[in-house]
């Protein structure tokens, strides 16, 4: 019983040890400064360890099972429309309110205003930022739909991803210079800590409940699409805005 509690806690400590070592090393030996507020630091670390342990436990109890059970139920129901509707809602709904995306779009609006792509007023900036958020959310919704279709049909992932890469390269050539950095980064910020386990469980669950699909070959890949399509869509947004 005791071991059931201490082992996950020790695992979390081990997960966090590298960060502590890196920060202590640079602070004490390279910058040669003492660690400020040692007490607060220790309390914070305790929170991080407990939080990570709870999160991992919750993952196994809640997020993985619900993702898989929905995948089985959708596969049994056999209604393609509702499965794709769910895929789109999951991609769009989890992205549109993502805090990291809200921050990046606001920054992008500032860049666009400085580059004279839009008028530099609060109103036009927030309009631009909102449009960008919708664009990225649409891109992620679209990505999960394509990804789910791929699992159902068993299309090899590499052709789709390479096709996406060609899309990124072509868009890079014609998109305005200022948007390129933001577009490339937008692919990374869309996938949050709660979305990733859920979407992974959904993909693996679908691949294991459809005959002829291998969960390892076909089950993964949804996140890959969700990090690729926003790059293309954001450059497209920069072109038409």
């Amino acid at each position: 019983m005791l071991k059931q509690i201490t082992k996950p806690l020790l695992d979390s400590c081990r997960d966090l040890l590298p960060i502590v070592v890196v920060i202590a090393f640079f602070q004490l030996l390279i910058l040669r400064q003492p660690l400020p507020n040692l007490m607060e630091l220790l309390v914070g670390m305790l929170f991080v360890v407990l939080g990570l342990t709870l999160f991992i436990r919750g993952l196994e109890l809640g997020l993985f099972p619900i993702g898989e059970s929905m995948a089985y139920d959708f596969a049994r129901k056999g209604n393609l429309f509702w499965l794709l509707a769910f895929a789109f809602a999951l991609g769009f709904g989890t992205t549109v309110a993502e805090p990291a995306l809200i921050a990046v779009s606001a920054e992008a609006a500032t860049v666009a205003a400085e580059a004279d792509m839009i008028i530099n007023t609060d109103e036009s900036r927030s309009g631009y930022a909102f449009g960008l958020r919708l664009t990225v959310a649409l891109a992620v919704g679209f990505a999960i739909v394509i990804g789910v279709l791929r699992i159902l049909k068993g299309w090899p992932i590499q052709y789709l991803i390479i096709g996406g890469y060609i899309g990124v390269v072509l868009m890079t050539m014609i998109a305005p210079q200022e948007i390129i950095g933001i577009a490339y980064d937008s692919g990374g910020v869309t996938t949050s800590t709660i979305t990733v386990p859920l979407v992974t469980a959904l993909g693996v669950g679908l691949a294991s409940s459809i005959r002829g699909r291998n969960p390892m070959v076909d089950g993964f890949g949804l996140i890959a699409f969700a990090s690729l399509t926003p790059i293309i869509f954001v450059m497209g947004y920069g072109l038409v805005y």
Partner: protein
Amino acid sequence: MMHINAWIEVLLSTLRDVFPIAAIILGFQLFVLRRKPKNLAKILIGFGFVIAGLAMFLLGLEQALFPLGKLMAEQLTAPAFLLADSSMTEQQLVWYSYLWVYLFALCIGFSTTIAEPALIAVAIKANEVSAGAVSVWGLRIAVAIGVAFGIALGTFRIVTGTPLHYYIIAGYVLVIIQTAFAPRNIVALAYDSGGVTTSTVTVPLVTALGLGLATHVPGRSPIMDGFGLIAFASLFPIIAVMAYAQLGNYLRR
């Protein structure tokens, strides 16, 4: 008692993040699937753990690690530190004046990725699905090496001011070549590992590093050159994970 207020604030914002997901799941369960999932009570407890755990995790990071890490990123990139032991002026700084910055980028990229909860989740799943062929730590370390290299190269790019898309396109070419040779069942997982690396822990610290560099390096502007580190951190894990599988295959032969 500032902790209590901060905790409630973080908890509320986590709830706000979870809300759309919960609403979509609930809506589809009730109106489309019309089935009660097995072990509903357990799943709800699990959701509670996820929300409380993530809130505590974020709060701890924001109280302890982020302020220190961000301050560090700023100090390491500042001319005062870079010029401390030499008689050079700011204009004489060259790309190798920033060696500590590259090393910091390497270490922080590696260590934040090891602690990234989303990556732990994907590694657990991959281990389960592959019946142990993909080891949890093997995958996590491969991804962390990819992120470490990506972020170090990304800081080098900001210092030298070379165009971002050359690096990205070269990375894509490498991914395509590797895809042709990598074991078939690692490809999808490798592509996924690019997207999972950059979330809760990595993004804030890496963004601070990019902005610090772009602010301090002569000739760079934070709004034009500060971007791109996340893109590097999402591209190089793909290369690293495929290399890990290729290496494993090669050693087994």
